[in-house]
């Protein structure tokens, strides 16, 4: 098709584009004040000429009503101006300081704009104002049968604009053009946007061009006149709208679906106000004239004609002042031609026996050529209005007002004034909006870095030091269930707790296996809680018992909690998909008394379950899991065996180290993490070597809790992810698994990451510096960061040797072949583990594998190496 354009024609079109491009380029230098001044003067110039332009339009197109076209021109200038006058469209247009966001306007450049025959001058006026307000240049391509009036409208706007500072060439109007010109310009590389207000062919061509396009779809507006509506208002509104400019606005009413109860009354009111109600024979005649039987679409000749002229053409005898021809129809579709769009004062009506039938017919009309456009309802029943708005697919749903003038916006409602109705995907358009200045802009968003909001959450009450359990006396309870494991019960720890409880407290002891809780154990515990209608749960034990109690409490209070779902992975606890239940059928206070010095479970929001079926540990994490009261009383750990002392102590140290370098680390967590590390370095060897040293036990017990305070808020890292995976697979104690990974993970985190972890709160990679700071606090020496990190690793290795930890996984008796077989799974499981999400360095799968192998091969012996270890 383009090949048929002559060289001269191409040169002409290229000239138009060049001129517009230059104008648009120059226009970018104008300020908001410049464009606002120009727009105001254009609007005033347009208002001066509204009647002149309306008259030109009528003379040229022979469509519509002069008075209505004047009104449309006024809406296109005054109402549009009223909407845009205070809008910022140059430079910074909106600011959201609390979100760190600024929106900056960028003009589109050259817009190629098609304008219709039905609203020719008003559409031009509207688009000129939008273009100047947004600093764009426009090449207009008016409908060939409305070219002269459009050209005049462009000229009036152009002269006013240039006179007041717009660049020359900002508007041009294609002369003596045809579809080939349009096709050429639609595909031109320098045209930034096509704004096609026209028939379906033009809109389709615009969207097919491959250019960004605004196009309006055709309409077929259904109206539901529901029995609760004010019939007087509805009838007047419909007549006003449908006869406005002889029905040329594509949002005007096409088929009115009327409830049976008011149908006759409404038709009588229409007739009283000048409508002609057709009988069956007249309706059939009208259908044949108004709708082309071959296509099912309206005949172009009837568009915008008076009702009396159409009646005359059909051969109907109507009163000389008939405003509207109303034809009853019995259905929607090709067999009922008048259910199609009719841009003239011809209206179909349908009698509906029920709300459901009415809604069905409205939907049918909407789908018969009007998808995405406009629908109208008259009703005072909010529920029916809602049902209607959900049923129809329309960008504009006009309530108790005229469709055509209502859809234009700004007169009967607060919608944006427009002469271009976006019809969404239903109408093959990119928007359902009333097209406005914001569609003529590229909006750039300047997004400043904002630190993520952080938090610091711990239990309301923490009691620590020797005999802290005395504080149990203050907690009144009608029924308390104590959860513990067999060994602790045998050791008499339950009796200690019993002594501290208020005398009248009924205490029921539930003993669970000494292992990470399985679902079965949790559910049995919930049964116990229900049986005794517990209002207080005391968890007496290490991490496994306390974790079990947390999950039992969760299921007891919220039986609907789905543990599998709650264990779903997440990246950021604040944005997680799954929310923990807040509705509770029971309430119980959870008091956690830790009997080991490591997990910190007494104050953390985490609980680890063992999934027997998959052989994996499942971590639940939510602050609702945090115990209400934590008791950190060293009398419960004085008899901890050496092995357990070492394992849990290293777990505590790992918590502190991982929390310190976490991407969630904050001044609130750092102080706790660093304090815990110092305490662990000082007191863990003493507690290990001298189990009865009360001070060492006390300080290690506190260190575990303090480290937990840090990691409950900053979380942990890769070390824990690997330890969870490895520990579960080979049934190795958690602390020992941590110890096997720890030196390797510190070296890994202290080196330059292959991949950085996205973290708005970290200004630079600082893990190595944090490790160096820790080395300084421990007085390890070294003059550079690198040296200090090395000294820290050596100190940890010495500590591990002092505590008689194995130096490698191989030392545990796991063969290379067995380990090699396990590694792929371990890597997958570790990568699924939420623990590493806060690691300073984002681990690659290959790197996790490398770390596992480093742990397998092991670390060198230190001078503190000791091979003695007793359980």
């Amino acid at each position: 098709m383009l090949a048929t354009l002559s060289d001269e024609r191409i040169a002409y079109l290229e000239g138009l584009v060049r001129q517009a491009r230059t104008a648009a380029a120059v226009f970018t230098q104008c300020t908001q004040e410049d464009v606002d001044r120009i727009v105001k003067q254009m609007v005033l110039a347009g208002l001066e000429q509204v009647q002149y332009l309306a008259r030109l339009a009528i003379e040229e197109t022979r469509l519509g009503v002069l008075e209505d076209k004047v009104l449309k021109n006024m809406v296109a200038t005054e109402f549009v101006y009223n909407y845009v006058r205070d809008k910022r469209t140059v430079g910074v247009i909106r600011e959201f300081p609390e979100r760190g966001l600024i929106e900056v306007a960028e003009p589109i450049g050259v817009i190629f704009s098609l304008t219709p025959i039905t609203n020719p001058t008003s559409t031009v006026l509207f688009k000129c104002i939008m273009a100047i307000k947004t600093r764009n240049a426009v090449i207009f391509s008016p409908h060939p049968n409305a070219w002269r009036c459009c050209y005049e409208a462009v000229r009036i706007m152009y002269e006013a604009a240039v006179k007041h500072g717009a660049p020359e060439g900002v508007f041009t109007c294609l002369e003596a053009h045809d579809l080939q010109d349009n096709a050429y310009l639609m595909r031109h590389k320098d045209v930034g946007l096509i704004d096609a207000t026209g028939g379906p062919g033009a809109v389709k061509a615009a969207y097919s061009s491959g250019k960004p396009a605004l196009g309006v779809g055709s309409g077929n507006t259904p109206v539901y006149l529901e029995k609760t509506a004010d019939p007087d208002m509805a009838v007047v509104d419909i007549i006003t709208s449908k006869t406005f400019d002889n029905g040329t606005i594509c949002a005007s009413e096409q088929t009115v679906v009327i409830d049976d109860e008011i149908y006759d009354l409404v038709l009588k009111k229409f007739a009283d106000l000048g409508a002609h109600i057709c009988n069956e024979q007249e309706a059939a005649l009208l259908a044949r004239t108004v709708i082309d039987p071959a296509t099912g679409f309206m005949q172009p000749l009837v568009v915008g004609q008076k009702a009396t002229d159409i009646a005359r053409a059909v051969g109907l005898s109507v009163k000389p002042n008939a405003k509207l021809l109303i034809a009853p129809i019995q259905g929607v579709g090709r067999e009922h031609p008048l259910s199609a769009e009719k841009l003239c004062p011809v209206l179909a009506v349908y009698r509906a026996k029920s709300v459901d039938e009415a809604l069905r017919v409205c939907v049918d009309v909407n789908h018969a050529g009007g998808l995405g456009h406009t629908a109208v309802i008259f009703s005072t029943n909010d529920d029916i209005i809602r049902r209607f708005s959900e049923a129809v697919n329309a960008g504009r749903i006009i309530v108790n007002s005229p469709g055509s003038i209502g859809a234009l916006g700004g007169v009967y409602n607060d919608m944006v004034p427009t002469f271009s109705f976006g019809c969404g995907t239903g109408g093959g358009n990119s928007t359902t909006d009333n097209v406005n200045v914001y569609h003529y802009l590229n909006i750039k968003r300047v997004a400043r870095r904002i630190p993520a909001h952080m938090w610091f959450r711990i239990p309301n009450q923490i009691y620590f030091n020797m005999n802290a359990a005395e504080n149990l006396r203050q907690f009144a309870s009608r029924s308390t269930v104590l959860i513990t494991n067999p060994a602790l019960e045998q050791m008499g720890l339950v009796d200690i707790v019993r002594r501290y409880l208020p005398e009248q407290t009924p205490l029921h002891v539930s003993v669970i296996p000494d292992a990470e809780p399985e679902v079965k154990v949790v559910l049995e515990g919930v049964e116990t809680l229900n049986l005794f209608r517990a209002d207080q749960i005391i968890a007496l034990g290490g991490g496994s018992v306390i974790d079990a109690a947390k999950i039992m409490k969760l299921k007891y209070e919220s039986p609907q909690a789905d543990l599998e779902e709650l264990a779903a992975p997440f990246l950021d606890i604040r944005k997680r998909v799954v929310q923990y239940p807040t509705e509770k059928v029971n309430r119980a206070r959870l008091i956690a008394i830790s009997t080991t010095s490591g997990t910190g479970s007494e104050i953390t929001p985490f609980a680890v379950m063992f999934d027997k079926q998959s052989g994996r540990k499942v971590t639940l994490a939510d602050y609702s899991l945090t115990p209400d009261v934590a008791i950190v009383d060293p009398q419960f750990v004085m008899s901890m065996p050496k092995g357990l002392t070492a394992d849990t102590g290293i777990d505590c140290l790992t918590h502190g180290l991982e929390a310190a370098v976490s991407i969630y680390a904050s001044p609130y967590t750092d102080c706790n993490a660093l304090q815990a590390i110092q305490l662990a370095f000082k007191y863990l060897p003493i507690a290990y070597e001298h189990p009865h040293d009360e001070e060492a036990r006390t300080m290690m017990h506190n260190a575990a809790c303090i480290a937990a305070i840090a990691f409950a808020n900053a979380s942990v890292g890769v070390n824990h992810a690997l330890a969870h995976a490895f520990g579960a697979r080979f049934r190795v104690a958690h602390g020992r698994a941590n110890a096997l990974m720890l030196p390797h993970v510190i070296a890994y985190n202290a080196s330059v990451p292959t991949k950085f972890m996205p973290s708005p709160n970290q200004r630079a990679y600082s893990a190595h510096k944090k490790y160096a700071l820790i080395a300084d606090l421990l007085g390890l020496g070294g003059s550079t960061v690198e040296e200090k990190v090395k000294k820290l690793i050596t100190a940890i290795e010495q500590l591990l040797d002092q505590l008689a930890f194995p130096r490698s996984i191989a030392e545990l008796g796991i063969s290379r072949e067995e380990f090699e077989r396990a590694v792929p799974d371990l890597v997958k499981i570790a990568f699924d583990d939420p623990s590493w999400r806060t690691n300073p360095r984002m681990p690659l799968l290959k790197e996790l594998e490398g770390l596992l192998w480093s742990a397998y091969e092991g670390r060198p012996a230190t001078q503190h190496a000791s091979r003695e270890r007793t359980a």
Partner: protein
Amino acid sequence: MATIAVMFKIDGEGVAPALQQAGERLDKANGHAVLDFSTVRRVDPAALSAMQELAATADGRGVKLALRGVNSDVYKVLKLAKLASRFSFLS
């Protein structure tokens, strides 16, 4: 051998005439000419047209044109008007 460019000061209040004058004196340029835009705050379509002509004249005479002191607003206009590639830019 080093060449010395001829410098044309472009008046910010009359960009198009200044460019036309520069075009007339382009013969004096020994293969290189510098247009000093440091006082030019804005350009209009006439200035762009003059720049286009000047670039064409310079091409015809084998003169390389450089613009000095172009502010970011004017540079953006030249870019959008597809004229930026006709010149080199000096700080």
